[in-house]
C-alpha cells in the first residue's frame, strides 16, 4: 500500500472552461504555499532569531540573517546548573527505555490478541481499548504515591517501567491491526516446521511486523521526548532533569535579556523531533491514518 496521491480525475462540468482549468491549479498552489508559510513562519523565525544577538528578537520580525552568531547557543548551553548535554542525555535515556519497553511488551500483548485463542479474550481486548482513552490524571496521584514509596522519585523508573508493562495501549492496538493483516498460512507453515507459539512470534510475526514496530518506535520517541507532565512530576532534582523540564526551569529563571539563549535551547530541543519526522514520516503518516493517533 502506498500513501502517495493518485490524482483523482475531476470530471468536466459546465464550469470548467480550458482557461479555468489551467488557472485553478496555480491558484490552489498559491493558496497552499501561503498557508504553509503562515504555518511554519514562527518556527523558522525562532531558528533565525536564535542565531542573532540577544535583544534583536524583540525588534526584528524578518527572517533574513545578516551575521550569524552562535553566542546564544554557548550561553544557553551553560545557563542552568548543569550543562545542557546532561539534559539531552537524560532525555535520551528515558526515550531509549520507553522505546525498548513499548516494542517488547506491546508486541507480546498484540500477538496474543491477534493470533491466540484464549478464555476471556474479548473481555481483555475491550478493557485494553478502554484504557487507550483513559486520562493520565486519573491515575497519576496514586501512581505518584506508589512510586515515591518505592523510592523511585528522581529516577527514570517511573517513566520507563510502565512502558515495559504495555501501558501505552495505543501501540498494542496498532500492532493488533497490523498482525491481523499477516496471512495465517505463514503461522501454520512455521508450525509444521516445528515452531511453537513462541517460535511463530519470534520467527514469523516479529520480522513481518517491522513497519508497525517502526511506527511505534518513532511515535514513542517523539511523544516521550516532548512529554512534560510526568517528567515534571517525577524529576525534581536538577541533575535528573530531562530537556522539557530543564527548558521550563530556564523560562522561570529567565529575565527578558536572555531570550536569545532560551530560543537557542528550544531549537536544540526540537532538532531530534524534526529529524525523527524527516526519517520516519512514511511510518508516521501511515500510523495515524490507520489508528488515528496523534
Amino acid at each position, binding site marked *: 500500500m502506498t500513501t502517495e496521491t493518485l490524482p483523482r480525475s475531476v470530471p468536466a462540468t459546465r464550469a470548467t472552461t480550458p482557461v479555468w482549468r489551467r488557472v485553478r491549479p496555480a491558484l490552489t498552489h498559491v493558496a497552499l504555499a501561503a498557508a504553509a508559510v503562515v504555518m511554519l513562519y514562527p518556527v523558522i523565525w525562532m531558528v533565525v532569531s536564535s542565531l542573532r544577538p540577544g535583544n534583536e528578537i524583540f525588534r*526584528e520580525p524578518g527572517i533574513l540573517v545578516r551575521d550569524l552568531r552562535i553566542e546564544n547557543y554557548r550561553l544557553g548551553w551553560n545557563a542552568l546548573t548543569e550543562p545542557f548535554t546532561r539534559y539531552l542525555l537524560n532525555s535520551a535515556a528515558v526515550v531509549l527505555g520507553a522505546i525498548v519497553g513499548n516494542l517488547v511488551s506491546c508486541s507480546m500483548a498484540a500477538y496474543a490478541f491477534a493470533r491466540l*485463542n484464549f478464555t476471556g479474550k474479548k473481555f481483555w481486548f475491550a478493557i485494553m481499548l478502554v484504557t487507550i482513552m483513559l486520562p493520565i490524571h486519573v491515575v497519576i496521584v496514586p501512581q505518584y504515591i506508589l512510586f515515591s514509596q518505592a523510592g523511585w522519585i528522581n529516577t527514570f523508573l517511573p517513566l520507563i517501567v510502565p512502558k515495559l508493562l*504495555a501501558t501505552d495501549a495505543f501501540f498494542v492496538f496498532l500492532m493488533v491491526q497490523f498482525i491481523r493483516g499477516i496471512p495465517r498460512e505463514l503461522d501454520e507453515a512455521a508450525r509444521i516446521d516445528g515452531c511453537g507459539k513462541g517460535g511463530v512470534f519470534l520467527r514469523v510475526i516479529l520480522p513481518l511486523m517491522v513497519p508497525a514496530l517502526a511506527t511505534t518506535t518513532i511515535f514513542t520517541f517523539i511523544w516521550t521526548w516532548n512529554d512534560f507532565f510526568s517528567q515534571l512530576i517525577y524529576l525534581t532534582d536538577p541533575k535528573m532533569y530531562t530537556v522539557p523540564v530543564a527548558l521550563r526551569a530556564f523560562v522561570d529563571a529567565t529575565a527578558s535579556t536572555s531570550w536569545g539563549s532560551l530560543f537557542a535551547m*528550544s531549537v536544540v530541543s526540537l532538532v531530534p523531533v524534526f529529524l525523527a519526522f524527516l526519517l520516519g514520516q512514511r511510518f508516521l503518516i501511515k500510523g495515524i491514518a490507520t489508528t488515528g493517533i496523534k
Partner: protein
Amino acid sequence: MSALSALGTLGRKKPPGQKKDNVAAYLFLTPWLLGLFVITIGPMIASLYLAFTDYNLIQAPQWTGLENFTRMLSDERLHNSLKVTFTYVLVSVPIQLAVALLLAVVLDRGVRGMAFYRSVFYLPSLLGSSVAIAILWKQIFGTDGLLNQLITPLGFAGKGWISDPSTALGTLVVLNVWTFGAPMVIFLAGLRQIPAMYYEAASVDGAGPLRRFFSITMPLLTPIIFFNLVLQIIHAFQSFTQAFVVSGGTGGPSDSTMFYTLYLYDRGFGNFDMGYASAMAWFLLVIIGVFTAANFVASKYWVFYDD
C-alpha cells in the same frame, strides 16, 4: 506441538473456542496484565478511595466522606477552570477540524506536490505539545512579541495578548488549531476511500463542486469526522503543557488560562492536597466519559455508515 498434529489441523478452519492456547496466551499477556493491574486499575481504585479522604502524603489518609465533593461544589476557582476548559475545547476543536477538513479536501484533488504540503501541515502536530513551542508562543504573543512587530507597522494597535485575560486563552486556541495536521491526515485517508464513480455520476447529473461536496463528500466522511471529533475532544480536555508554560505555571493572568488539569496539578502537586486532587481526577474522568457517550448517542443522528 508436533508437525504431525499440525498437519492434522491444517486446511480445516478451527471453530472459535475449540482449541485454546490459554497458557501461551496468558504468558504473552503477562507484562500487559501486570501493567493493567499495578499501573492502571490499582491506582484507579486507590484514587477513588483517596477521593473520600484528606491526604497530604505525610500523614495517613483521613476518611472525610463526601467533603471533597461538597468543597468542589463551592470552589470558585474550580468552576472557573471548568469554564476555561470547556471554552477551550468547544472553540478550538471545531475550528481545528474545519481547517483540517478544508485542507484535506483541497489536497485530495490531486494537487502536485501533495506529499510535500501534507508533510508541512503535519509537522506542527508533532511539535505542538513541546515546551519549546510553548516558549515560542509566549514570545510571539508577548507585548514585544513577533505578532506585534508584524502588525504595528500595518497600523494595528498591538498589546500584550498573553498578559490580557481576555485574549490569553485565545492564544492557546490558536496553538491547538495550529496542530490540525494529524486530523487532516486522517481525513485524507478517509477521502481516499470514496469511490471516484460517485463523483462522476453526480457530475453527469449536473452537480457542481459545492453540491458534490455536500451531497457526497460530507455524508461519506461523517464516520471519520465523528472519529476525529471524539479523539480531539478527549485530547483537548487533557491539555496541560502549553497553558502551564505560557502562564508560568500559574494559569494566569487572573486564572484565564487555568485549565482543569492545571488546577488539578496545583492542588495535588503544588499543595499536596492529594484527596481533593483525586476527587477532581475522577470528576474529569466522568466529564470525558459523558462527553464521549453523548457523542456516540448523537452520532446516530448524523453519522452515515455506507455498508
